[in-house]
């Protein structure tokens, strides 16, 4: 695959927060790239740093308690070091974001039409009438029925799924090249989830928008992602294409994630598989590999800091942070014939 200039190039991103209990290393050495039109899924559990990463790209984590390191280049602009004005210009225009909870993400006292017009007019000199027209078309495109009437409705007059569609329409109103979606379906019913994902796939097809999809749900990922980055405890522990991650996962945490998916085509497990233990506190993570305490494959080398690098010559771009040799990995991840996971089924948790 030809390496054209990436749309987004994140290098060694670091985000620290000062809290009353100490410094929290929310994002620790995160690097990835997004090509134009590509869908990158960032997967991890709560506390992995995936949302902080996403919001940092939009500059929404800037505060007196936050310290940043590394860079995130959107074409030529480094989002991490950008001035407030530079950031404002690209937000909502080049790079847009939709959030997890559509109920609280819209201002309850303004009509939705007005809220979208506001975004358009912040970046383009467009008349009220013309902006309104565009908004109606946008709403139609995301599947809002009777868009011309509902443009004047208030957010509380919509259902959750509809609200998220409004958010998508709003985010797309200026045709951004990158859309960041932070758990867009977590707060919605499973059936609505499918619809929203469908919308997002459409987006990519229609406008060649790149998407960073932040989620904890691997099922969602399989549907829509081109590449996947697995995050744990502030770090990316593995990154690769959809196939590489699902069929040749290299990091034990990824095995754990894949192993915890209950599959309908398999025998019913005696216990729901899960990854034993809990994520480390971001205040005092273990030395070396953060996953050590929960990893049954831990050995001596694991106390050394593992770089995120490609360890498989045949698969460039498939990087991970595990010290185990590749053959060992491929052997140990099969806990049962054809089944990938972290531990034997039925082992005490």
């Amino acid at each position, binding site marked *: 695959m030809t390496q054209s200039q990436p749309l987004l190039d994140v290098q060694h991103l670091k985000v620290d*927060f000062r809290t009353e209990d100490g410094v929290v290393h929310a994002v620790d050495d995160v690097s990835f790239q997004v090509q134009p039109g590509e869908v990158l899924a960032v997967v991890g559990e709560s*506390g992995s740093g995936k949302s902080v990463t996403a919001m940092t790209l939009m500059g929404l984590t800037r505060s007196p308690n936050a310290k940043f390191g590394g860079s995130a280049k959107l074409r030529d602009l480094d989002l991490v070091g950008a001035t407030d004005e530079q950031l404002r210009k690209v937000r909502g225009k080049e790079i847009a974001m939709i959030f997890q909870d559509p109920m609280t993400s819209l201002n309850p006292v303004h009509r939705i039409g007005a809220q979208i017009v506001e975004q358009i007019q912040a970046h383009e000199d467009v008349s009220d009438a013309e902006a309104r027209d565009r908004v109606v078309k946008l709403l139609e495109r995301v599947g809002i029925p009777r868009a011309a009437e509902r443009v004047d409705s208030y957010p509380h007059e919509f259902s959750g799924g509809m609200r998220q569609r409004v958010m998508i329409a709003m985010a797309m109103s200026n045709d951004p090249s990158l859309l960041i979606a932070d758990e867009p379906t977590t707060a919605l019913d499973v059936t609505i989830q499918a619809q929203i994902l469908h919308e997002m796939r459409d987006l990519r097809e229609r406008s060649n928008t790149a998407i960073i999809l932040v989620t904890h749900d691997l099922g969602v990922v399989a549907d829509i992602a081109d590449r996947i980055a697995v995050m744990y405890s502030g770090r990316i522990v593995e990154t690769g294409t959809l196939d590489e991650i699902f069929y040749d996962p290299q990091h034990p945490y990824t095995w754990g994630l894949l192993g915890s998916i209950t599959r309908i085509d398999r025998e019913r497990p005696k216990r729901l598989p899960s990854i*034993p*233990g809990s*994520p480390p*506190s971001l205040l005092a993570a273990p030395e070396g590999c953060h996953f050590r305490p929960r990893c049954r494959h831990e*050995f001596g080398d694991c*106390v050394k800091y593992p770089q995120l690098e490609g360890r498989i010559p045949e698969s460039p771009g498939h990087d991970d942070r595990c010290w185990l040799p590749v053959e060992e990995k491929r052997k140990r991840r099969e806990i049962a014939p054809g089944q990938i996971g972290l531990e034997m089924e039925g*082992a005490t948790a």
Partner: protein
Amino acid sequence: MAALPAGSLFFEKPLMATSSDPATTIPDQDPSEILTEPGGGKPAAGTGPWRLAGRRLRRNKVALAFGALFVLLVLVALSAPLFANHVADTGPNTNHLSDVITIDGEQKNVVEFDGVPIGPQGLAADGRFVLGADRNGRDVMVRLLYGARNSLFIGITASIITAVLAVFLGLLAGYFRGWVDAVISRGLDILWAFPVLLLGIALGVSLSLGGLDLGIFSIEGNSLWIPTLIIGLVGIVYLARPIRGQVLSLREKEFVEAARAQGASDWRIMFKELLPNLLSTILVFFPVLVANAVSLEAALSFLGAGVQPPEPSWGTMLGEGIDLLISAPHLTIVPGAMLTLTVLSLNVFGDGVRDALDPRAKVRLEH
């Protein structure tokens, strides 16, 4: 490399350098061992919400200082009888209109013929009339202390009454809903329609004349219990609404359903499941309740609808003092200052309690 004992892997500090050859044998570890010990790297620890709140409160030095100030004021007020009997040698309501006292060998009238009382003596008259006398020749210092005692007694007791009744009504209304809620909420609305002071005045005026006689018990018109009950009653509206709101949302939670599934009776659910959860709300409101009660008592007594003479309270003293403002400003300044300090320390401490129990997280950590 030899197989490492399970224990040594769990230290946070790096192990002594061992061979880093990736081809070394990798020991198999029993996952259960990893879990029972604290990992190399602490798992995200959990502490109970009360502990966390206590820690936060302890870190708030300012709030603690004012809390201590309030406690000090209470102790001072409680020392009133001690001071009266052992130092000033007089009661709070004893008139010394025609008395003469000796200061530095001189004879002075406690109250001059033109009605002006003696000023603050400090320590000159061995403890008597430290702050001077009032128009009736009463020892101001003694009255101040007894007044503090009365005001604080009324404030605290009334707040307890308010809390008990408000929680009870809020629980009933929020839990049973339906017509119980309708009746209680309508009642609260009606009480709410009266400005607090006006309602207090109305009740104070009508009750201090003839007292209260409900058959089961009766109270004299000039008893301290009249203002106490009145203030306790009017405060209910402030607390009952928030409690009701909280009960309404709590009753939908799973632990209530679980209790019901276990066969718990309504009363048991209300008092054993819901009430403990209301505790933090009550604690947040209580200092403010006391502050408001003390202020209300002062206002009512100042107007004559609260504590009835000759009993002292900060309010009555302020009322009497303002008449003599020109000649004896200290009679107004001192009780007012003590009142302000009390309310202030309660407000600051109350703020601290609220911050401890319901902080706005300074850092919002998303997933």
